[in-house]
């Protein structure tokens, strides 16, 4: 059972030129053809597999009633093609609150830190809040 503050997973991620370009094009970044700097939300690519496991397996949220509430980024250095990042995911908060239509809604906040494998310096911190709405009364 994972609790707030616990490290959930650690993994490494390499920023590939083709993946960065594919992502930049998908979000209509005007620099997509020639920039080697990642668009601001590119870290989602590094955490996609983790988020999938987190939602479906580790937290076992019901996807049909789970919505994405908020996303926050702090950037300390640009993420560039060729960077190798050590990604560390922590559970920041896991709370139950009374839903507006009865029942309990669950609010889960996770934080992923991205550090340069080469220098150890913090490159980016990504914080995500998911809300599982209360189940319908049966």
């Amino acid at each position, binding site marked *: 059972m994972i609790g707030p503050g616990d490290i959930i997973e650690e993994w490494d991620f390499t920023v590939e030129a083709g993946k960065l370009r*594919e992502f930049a094009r*998908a*979000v209509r*970044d005007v620099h997509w053809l020639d920039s080697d*700097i990642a668009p601001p*939300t590119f870290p989602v690519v590094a955490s996609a597999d983790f988020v999938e496991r987190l939602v479906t397996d580790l937290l076992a949220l019901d*996807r049909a009633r789970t919505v994405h509430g908020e*996303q926050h980024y702090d*950037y300390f250095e*640009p993420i560039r093609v060729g960077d190798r990042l050590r990604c560390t995911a922590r559970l920041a908060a896991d709370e139950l609150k009374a839903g507006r239509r009865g029942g309990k809604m669950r609010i889960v906040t996770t934080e992923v830190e991205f550090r340069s494998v080469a220098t150890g310096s913090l490159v980016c911190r990504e914080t995500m809040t998911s809300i599982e709405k209360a189940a319908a009364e049966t």
Partner: protein
Amino acid sequence: MILPCPDPLVYPALTRTDLVRYAGASGDFNPLHHDHEAATRAGLSDVMAQGMLSAGLLASALTKWFGAGSVASYSVRFRSPVWPSDVLSAHCRRLEALLAEDGTRMARAELELVRSSREIVLLGTACVWTDAVTANP
């Protein structure tokens, strides 16, 4: 000091292909974003755009206005689902110059991603380092 806001950025109407392109690019393969049957089973009228596609589009307005690598922080709150054929536009509603603790010139932007019906689908705030801001104080 309040700075003039950059012009809004209007995106072409969102297509299902845009959603699939973002699914592949981001790795978010939640079926609610590309599988119509899964979406209707979950009570939706159609496939719903990924929230982070909207967040990515709004972030692309930032990099167009202030340059690649200009963003120091970026936060979004999801307000309303986005659907295929929605026409979205990115707006900077307020831009304020500020000085970081180390003396770096920055600006704080209040942002909205808006549907053509003028409904806000995404609220954002960002802090940016910008040549535009430092060059044109």
